[in-house]
């Protein structure tokens, strides 16, 4: 029996309608933000400095976490993947356990520690946990484990320095994973709402993700702030799309 196939036009139409349905909240926000022309955007940049300051805080927190995570997670992943030492497996499983914990479990200890060491109500109370993200270490460790040890042994004939091996052999090979991990950390801390509410108190250090909750319903400034809030991760994902797909997908050595 020959199964009848829907015409391509019908399938395309269904897909377009579905896509419009999914994109409709974004389109509504964009269109509403231009209700009064560019007034809402001018308000955001000029006349409402609290929201511009919140945007700067968001950028500092997310970029600081993303860039710091590269510096910390690459050596840590190299250590777990390529340098045998006693307790390596146990320590790595601890990383996985911490990674699997819901954030609400670690939020109270973070609050207590940030209070004790004087980081409460500062940007560092969010940046430092972001830098030491276990997810980035886990992702890069798996990628580095896929690189054959024979490659490193051949490289050790030229140099015995682990730092040089890591920098010139491993890092170029796991570059997609590094970019993927840092972009995901950026996205996680760009959208953070609960952690800033717990670890911060004053409006001067709140990121924009928290300040958007302060805006009232129907406030055109809120729509403009939302559009601007979406731009940074959109640009990053657009630029690093290939690396993110590679980092999350097939990371076998080619």
């Amino acid at each position, binding site marked *: 029996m020959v199964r009848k196939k829907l015409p391509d036009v019908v399938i395309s139409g269904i897909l377009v309608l579905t896509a419009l349905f999914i994109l409709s909240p974004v389109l509504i926000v964009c269109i509403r933000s231009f209700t009064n022309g560019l007034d809402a955007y001018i308000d955001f*940049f000029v006349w409402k400095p609290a929201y511009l300051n919140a945007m700067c805080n968001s950028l500092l927190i997310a970029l600081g976490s993303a860039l710091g995570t590269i510096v910390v997670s690459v050596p840590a992943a190299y250590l777990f993947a390529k340098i045998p030492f006693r307790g390596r497996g146990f320590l790595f499983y601890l990383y996985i356990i911490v990674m699997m914990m819901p954030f609400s479990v670690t939020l109270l200890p973070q609050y207590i520690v940030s209070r004790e060491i004087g980081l409460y109500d500062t940007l560092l109370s969010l940046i430092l946990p972001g830098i030491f993200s276990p997810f980035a270490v886990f992702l890069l460790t798996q990628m580095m484990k896929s690189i054959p040890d024979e490659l490193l042994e051949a490289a050790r004939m030229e140099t015995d320095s682990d730092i040089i091996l890591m920098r010139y052999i491993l890092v170029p090979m796991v570059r997609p994973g590094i970019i993927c991990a840092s972009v995901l950390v950026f996205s996680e801390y760009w959208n953070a709402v609960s952690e800033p509410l717990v670890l911060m108190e004053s409006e001067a250090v709140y990121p924009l993700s928290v300040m958007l909750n302060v805006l009232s319903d129907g406030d055109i400034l809120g729509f403009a702030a939302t559009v601007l809030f979406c731009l940074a991760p959109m640009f990053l994902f657009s630029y690093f799309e290939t690396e993110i797909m590679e980092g999350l997908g097939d990371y076998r050595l080619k």
Partner: protein
Amino acid sequence: MKRYVSLIGFFLFLCMIFLFQICGTQIRDFLSPKVVCEDPGWGIYDNSVYMVIPLRWMTENENGYTVFTAVPTDAYPETAYAAKEVTFKASYVTEDFAYVDDPSLGASGKIIIFSDRPLVDGQRICIQKSNST
């Protein structure tokens, strides 16, 4: 092409954010109405002390007289003033002056006697010259 557009867009976005954050005070001063403020004088009329305000500083309407005053505002990170519209009734009016016994006017701050553009209540202003008695 998409990567170049994304990179340039992100770079421009960052530059705009930090430019407006760093130079926000100067930009707001440039865009705000430039005003000149004066303190009202005091005088005695009919054995009572009144605030004396020249009529040319005020506009008259059905509710009385209206002036704009410069009041400090904490809506901005810098020290800034906003225009506040105050409506009051004058106790006595002469040819050039109004004698006012309204306590709300005295607490409102300096009176704006000149502005380079029409003012709106609550609008940020840039004080060019202010005389204090």
